């Protein structure tokens, strides 16, 4: 009874969509942001529908399958101007994915990847711990954190090594980074794969500014009046580039290679730094490393 009543109420709800941006997908997804009836969410856990907008490299198939698995069931998938990488959901070739998203909101994709339980516990010490002493070891099939040097204040605490990307909404789509973090300070970076090609549309100043402002928690309307520039450190490149975009100019500065530029920045600063360059320039900065 209560369930029926709830589902009747839920029928009018916005559809939470997690958008995976592929090649040439940045501008179309920005265009979806203000469509009524759907809501673009930041985390796949909050989504009902997975929207793949633009072609995704076959190399990222596993990542995409994992993302699909992270959307709670029942889930639906829409491939918008993208060749399906696996046989779930339906494709849309036209300009408007909304009808397909509506249809997917009623769909129930089966799992694409099997649900595997975590690695079993492997204790080796006398108290059942994973390492020989109380440190280290591989208890769940992955290494425990170990201490390493800190580049900011020299306090050598545990570091976190992980791969970030390619579909994290705050990073340029397609960019995959292997990061070593001390807290939220980036200690070392290596680029695993460059961002996707976004074409001319992706470089439009208003779109770039909107992306950056979203990371700072406000809508782009009258951003200057709201002190958006004051929030960034004075004289920093991020502030200069955001100012140029807000004036409607194109940013011509090119980023230095990521492994040199990012270490020492905090997560939020690094994310803003990455968002403050044209997608095409950022891709170019990541390419030669990739070739080498």
């Amino acid at each position, binding site marked *: 009874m209560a369930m029926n009543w709830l589902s009747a109420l839920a029928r009018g709800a916005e559809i939470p969509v997690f958008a995976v941006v592929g090649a040439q997908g940045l501008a179309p997804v920005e265009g979806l942001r203000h469509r009524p009836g759907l809501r673009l969410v930041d985390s796949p856990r909050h989504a009902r529908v997975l929207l793949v907008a633009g072609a995704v490299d076959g190399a990222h198939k596993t990542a995409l399958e994992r993302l699909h698995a992270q959307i709670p069931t029942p889930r639906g998938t829409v491939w918008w101007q993208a060749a399906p990488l696996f046989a779930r959901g339906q494709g849309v070739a036209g300009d408007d994915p909304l009808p397909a998203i509506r249809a997917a909101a009623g769909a129930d994709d089966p799992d694409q990847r099997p649900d595997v339980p975590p690695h079993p516990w492997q204790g080796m010490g006398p108290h059942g711990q994973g390492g020989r002493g109380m440190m280290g070891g591989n208890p769940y099939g992955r290494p425990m954190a170990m201490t390493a040097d800190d580049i900011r204040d*020299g*306090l050598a605490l545990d570091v976190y090594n992980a791969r970030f990307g390619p579909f994290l909404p705050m990073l340029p789509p397609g960019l995959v980074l292997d990061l070593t973090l001390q807290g939220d300070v980036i200690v070392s970076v290596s680029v695993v794969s460059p961002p996707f090609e976004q074409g001319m549309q992706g470089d439009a100043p208003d779109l770039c500014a909107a992306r950056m402002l979203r990371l700072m928690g406000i809508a782009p309307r009258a951003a200057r009046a709201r002190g958006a520039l004051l929030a960034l450190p004075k004289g920093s490149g991020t502030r200069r580039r955001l100012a140029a975009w807000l004036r409607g100019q194109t940013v011509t500065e090119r980023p230095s290679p990521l492994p040199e530029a990012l270490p020492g920045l905090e997560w939020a600063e690094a994310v803003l730094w990455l968002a403050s360059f044209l997608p095409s320039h950022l891709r170019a900065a990541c390419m030669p490393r990739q070739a080498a």
Partner: protein
Amino acid sequence: MTLVSVLIVAAALIGIGLYGALSQQSFVMLMMGLELMLNGAILAMMGFWSFSLGGAPEGQLLAIIVMAVMAVEMAVGFALVVAVYRKRQADMTESLTTMKH
């Protein structure tokens, strides 16, 4: 709720705290033991204040001073842990057999 029962609870907290402070190898856990003992001390103090002192304000003052002592203990304790860790990468009591660098 009588003075005796309050004091016995406080004694239990102090006993557990003493056990923790003596047995833990890690500095931070050791400080938890000390804090737990001070917790018992505050409880005993409030018990005496309420049942035996007739609400004399000095009893409450003493509790406030104990809280300040806890804050000082924790701040200095953590500062020492950080300083020692910088020097020797150590956060266990055994690794501090000498005060020199």
